[in-house]
């Protein structure tokens, strides 16, 4: 390879910038067309149910199992730290706040990107490479309406539910470890939790977070599938991109949302 002159480097930077902006633009048009475009989609409910099943129900197992373990680990770690200050009763509020504000939405979004997001990308990419999308279009059915829209909505609906289930299961796992194993008094465990957790500030903010994450992760996953190069190599690259982009977007957005919701300014 020949060395590049500074001007060529600037040109490369410019080209990369243009690429980023065009793909942002294309994905936005794609999203708007899929969600709000008019078209024939008579059996939308049926399609949505099918997708809710494959996106939501199929992710339930990994969410529940991870939730229990994360709650239990939080409980163990929190207890050993709090016990040093003689306030092990506060372990309940610590678990609940951590799960509701942060771990519930974030870990669910990351797991969702890995489990459902990659599957969405691969599925749509595969449909594209086997010409099923073109075939739909030629039959006179808009693939944006028939394939993309139900998957987007299924993602938007599923993830907040999954995040709430994650938090509940995590708190349950944490309470089990704290109360039955570490011997924290049950009454103070729950009353401390109830006193410090606010429904509007903590629960609702957590749900808002996971709605935002749901939007971003599903959008990235579905667009990557729809936009991928229709070869097996292209699909595998798109799947990797989905997981990487979605995870980064979730973590970055989490910082911004946390600063807006819980930061003092």
């Amino acid at each position, binding site marked *: 390879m020949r060395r590049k002159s500074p001007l060529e480097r600037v040109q490369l930077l410019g080209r990369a910038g243009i690429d980023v902006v065009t793909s942002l633009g294309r994905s936005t048009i794609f999203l708007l067309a899929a969600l709000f475009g008019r078209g024939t989609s008579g059996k939308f409910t049926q399609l949505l*149910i*099918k997708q*809710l*099943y494959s996106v*939501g*129900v199929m992710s*339930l197992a990994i969410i529940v199992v991870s939730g229990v373990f994360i709650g239990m680990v939080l409980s163990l770690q929190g207890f050993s730290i709090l016990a040093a*200050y*003689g*306030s092990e009763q506060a372990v309940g509020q610590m678990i*609940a706040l951590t799960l*509701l504000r942060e771990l519930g939405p974030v870990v669910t979004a990351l797991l969702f990107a890995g489990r459902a997001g990659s599957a969405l990308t691969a599925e749509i990419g595969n449909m594209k490479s086997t010409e099923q999308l073109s075939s739909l279009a030629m039959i006179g059915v808009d693939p944006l309406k028939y394939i993309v829209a139900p998957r987007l909505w299924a993602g938007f609906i*599923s993830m*907040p*539910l*999954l995040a*709430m*289930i994650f*938090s*509940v299961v995590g*708190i349950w796992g944490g309470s089990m470890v704290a109360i039955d194993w570490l011997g924290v008094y049950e009454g103070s465990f*729950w*009353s401390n*939790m*109830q*006193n*410090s*957790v*606010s*429904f509007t500030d*903590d*629960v609702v903010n957590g*749900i808002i977070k996971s709605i935002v994450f749901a939007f971003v992760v599903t959008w990235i996953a579905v667009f990557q599938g729809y936009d991928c190069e229709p070869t097996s190599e292209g699909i595998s690259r798109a799947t990797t991109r989905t997981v990487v982009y979605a995870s980064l977007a979730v973590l970055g957005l989490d910082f911004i949302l946390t600063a807006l919701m819980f930061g003092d300014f």
Partner: protein
Amino acid sequence: MQNRTLEVGVGLFLLAGMLALMLLALRVSGLAVGAGEDTYKVYAHFDNIAGLTVRSKVTMAGVSIGKVTAIDLDRDSYTGRVTMELNKDVDNLPIDSTASILTAGLLGEKYVGISVGGEEELLADGGTIHDTQSSLVLEELIGKFLLNSVNKDSAN
């Protein structure tokens, strides 16, 4: 057939989600349905509320009977005004009851403790507790202690 398992699965999933929301609301954040109905408001002025926060407990004989809903500064008396919501079923507090800001443990959270007075007249909704005892501020305590020992020294 296949459609049915699909629909049942999705139905259970949605139910689980809603159940989770209810658990979070009721069990975890202690949101009581229609909580505004059976409470009444009582005010108390403190010289120093340092450390007391909104949502802190209000207790009587160690039993939680309500919570702090607002804290602001009274412009006229330069005191901290604490608004508390007490459960309706504890509506027999005499008007000369005492409110004090207490600490749970050495480093624990602050809460308001109410001890009963002896008057016949009872606190009504919107009433004010006049007899108050402020938060214990460690710095002031140490200051007093030092002053006392200095006074003792000079007396000798």
